[in-house]
């Protein structure tokens, strides 16, 4: 019996088994966000998930590659054995190195986003061809990096899954000198967007945005409420600034608030 046929206990175990068998496969992962992990000869070549921007999304949104030029390169690749990487180079749109960098960044960002969803169920299917792929990584490398990222966010912010559901808004503070990418985040943080939404809006990685948000929170430049636990509340919403459900005594420290800031808890007196 092949390793992958025995029911694996968790996703890393499944990926390890598929790696051992050198399988070409697409692993469909359930949860919020769910996604698809693409494997070639047991190694991860791409991760698609609504939780993190794809390589294509980051390239187009950041303005690195123009949309119509990208579409033409995609259409031309595949015919005559030309890969997308070759087409992008031939058309002077991206060097192979830069294409590889963007794909690698998106792959690890996608894996991180998948880890934020409760990946309780999965299904192994035949390989689907992801259009945008450059390098392949052994699953244990991806798992190790994902674990490191989760630990980093836990250290800098608190629960990473909670941060993923948190809607961020810019605090009303006097302007400080910031890097352009930090200013962009403050402009995008409108109180409706989660870190993932900001990442899509700016064409950056979800993890990178979370790191920058941690930095901006430390400077007191952003505000947020504790996100509601589980499904969103259907209780009547009061007009005005958003309210959050007080969480039960959690082991994680409560978000820090500057004096004079709005009280985070729902007030019955409103």
């Amino acid at each position, binding site marked *: 019996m092949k390793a992958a046929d025995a029911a694996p206990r968790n996703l890393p175990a499944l990926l390890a088994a598929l790696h051992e068998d050198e399988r070409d496969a697409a692993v469909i992962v359930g949860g*919020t*966000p*769910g996604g698809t992990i693409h494997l070639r000869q047991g190694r991860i070549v791409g991760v698609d*998930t*609504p*939780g*993190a*921007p*794809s390589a294509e*999304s980051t390239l*187009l*949104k950041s303005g690195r590659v123009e*949309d119509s030029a990208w579409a033409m390169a995609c259409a031309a690749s595949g015919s005559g054995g030309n890969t997308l990487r070759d087409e992008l180079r031939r058309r002077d749109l991206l060097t192979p190195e830069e294409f590889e960098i963007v794909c690698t960044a998106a792959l690890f960002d996608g894996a991180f986003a998948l880890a934020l969803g409760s990946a309780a169920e999965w299904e192994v299917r035949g390989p689907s061809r992801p259009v945008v792929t450059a390098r392949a990584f052994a699953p244990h490398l991806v798992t190790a990096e994902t674990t490191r990222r989760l630990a980093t966010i836990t250290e800098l912010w608190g629960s990473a899954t909670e941060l993923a559901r948190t809607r961020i808004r810019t605090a009303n503070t006097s302007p400080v000198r910031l890097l352009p990418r930090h200013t962009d985040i403050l402009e995008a943080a*409108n*109180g*409706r967007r989660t870190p*993932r*939404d900001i990442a*899509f*809006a700016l064409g950056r990685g979800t993890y990178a945005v979370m790191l920058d948000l941690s930095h901006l929170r430390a400077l007191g430049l952003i505000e947020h409420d504790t996100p*509601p636990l589980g*499904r*969103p509340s*259907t209780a*009547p*919403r009061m*007009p*005005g*600034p958003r309210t959050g459900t007080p969480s039960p005594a959690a082991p994680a420290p409560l978000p820090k608030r500057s004096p004079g800031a709005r009280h985070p808890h729902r007030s019955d007196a409103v």
Partner: protein
Amino acid sequence: MPEIHQPEPLVEVLTALREGVMGVSETVISTVDGLLVAADVDAVHAESIAALSAATHSLAHRMAHEAGGTGLRDVTTRSADRHVVVLAINDRALLTILGDDGLDLIRLQHDIHTTLAHLAKILKGDTPA
């Protein structure tokens, strides 16, 4: 905040949809003749979306009919970084969903029937003006 605040059960359903499905950024409910009913919007102009939704849906309906199809399900418009989905709540009202390019379409398909049913139930109480 530019959010339109109607103390309306309709807006609650719209907000729940935005919070439940990744990538949903803004939603608009309109009449089939293009009037704005309710909206959960941030940057877009709700009245314009309402008017365009009516036109889009009507055109797609005609197109589906012309092509021999019956029962139009939805109209999806994809651009490089946006998804726009127009669906009928009932034969008088439309729901328009605006999302980013990462919109969780699988989750949306799963959740949309409940949302449409909720909205239809609320709108059922409307009396002729």
